[in-house]
């Protein structure tokens, strides 16, 4: 009974002037990123510009969108763009893991959260979004200007060829003088976290018929 008017309202909101301006701005941002990358470093710079635009445009869209489902799906662009940046940086294994874990796992988890909670289409307040963007953007720009003015990036003189293979990472995980302790700790953390998640997320039925099952469930 509530659904049809809400859907109509959302459809009207889609034709909103502000959202048209926002989408036009996103398209302009893509052109700017591509042009800047092309002028800075040729075709590879254009690819970098495309991935950077995917990352930033996806997260901007996530903040902007009214519906939680669309925000979650716009994170797809962010995670995919990050995987592309990893590939550009020569981290092939990380790019693959990013796609597998973020796009395949974490995004699916967020979508489960979206589906199991009610939507609230009037939760986004445009002035608050704009004020947040302006304030945090100004703060970040100020900090970035300070850092860029004072930092000395010690980039290696002759960049090594990016040839990190998955086997190298595997050796790093398992070699006794490298990361094996952290690897085992990560295994323990994952086990504990997943068991705890299952334990926390189960439906409690203490208030249904047996009041004494609260103590049994808690023990």
């Amino acid at each position, binding site marked *: 009974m509530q659904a049809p008017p809400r859907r109509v309202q959302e459809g009207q909101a889609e034709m909103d002037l502000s959202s048209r301006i926002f989408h036009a701005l996103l398209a302009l941002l893509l052109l700017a990123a591509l042009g800047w990358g092309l002028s800075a470093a040729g075709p590879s710079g254009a690819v970098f510009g495309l991935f950077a635009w995917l990352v930033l445009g996806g997260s901007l869209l996530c903040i902007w969108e009214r519906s939680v489902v669309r925000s979650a799906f716009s994170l797809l662009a962010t995670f995919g763009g990050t995987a592309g940046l990893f590939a550009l*940086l020569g981290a092939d294994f990380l790019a693959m893991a990013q796609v597998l874990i973020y796009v395949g796992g974490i995004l699916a988890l967020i979508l489960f959260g979206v589906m199991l909670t009610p939507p609230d289409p009037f939760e986004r307040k445009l002035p608050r979004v704009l004020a947040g963007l302006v304030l945090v953007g100004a703060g970040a720009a100020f900090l970035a200007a300070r850092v860029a003015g004072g930092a000395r990036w010690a980039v290696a003189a002759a960049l090594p060829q990016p040839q990190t293979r998955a086997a190298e990472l595997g050796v790093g995980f398992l070699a006794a003088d490298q990361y094996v302790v952290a690897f085992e700790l990560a295994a323990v953390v994952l086990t504990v976290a997943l068991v705890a998640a299952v334990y926390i997320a189960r439906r409690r039925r203490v208030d249904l018929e047996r009041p004494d099952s609260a103590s049994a469930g808690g023990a």
Partner: protein
Amino acid sequence: MGLEAYVAVSAALFALGIVCILVRRNVLYVLMGIEMILNAANINFVAFNRFGSGGIDGQMMAVFVIILAAAEAAVALAIVLNVFYLFHSVKPSAADFLRE
């Protein structure tokens, strides 16, 4: 592309994650903002690894960040569902007591 470009993208993504946490009144947006922030940290790790003195330390750190992000997402989703069952709302300000 140089190191500065990657660091700039990472800083912008971090700022957008902060904005996402601050301006939306829904716990799920807090989760999404945290994922953005972790991704920004990962881009930094991998970029400094690439432009540093070689080795795979930065990439190992990124792998551990991804592992922790997966664990965090699972636990956070469980907490979100519990908050919704308890308070019948997904506003971050709704969960204002630990037990009745």
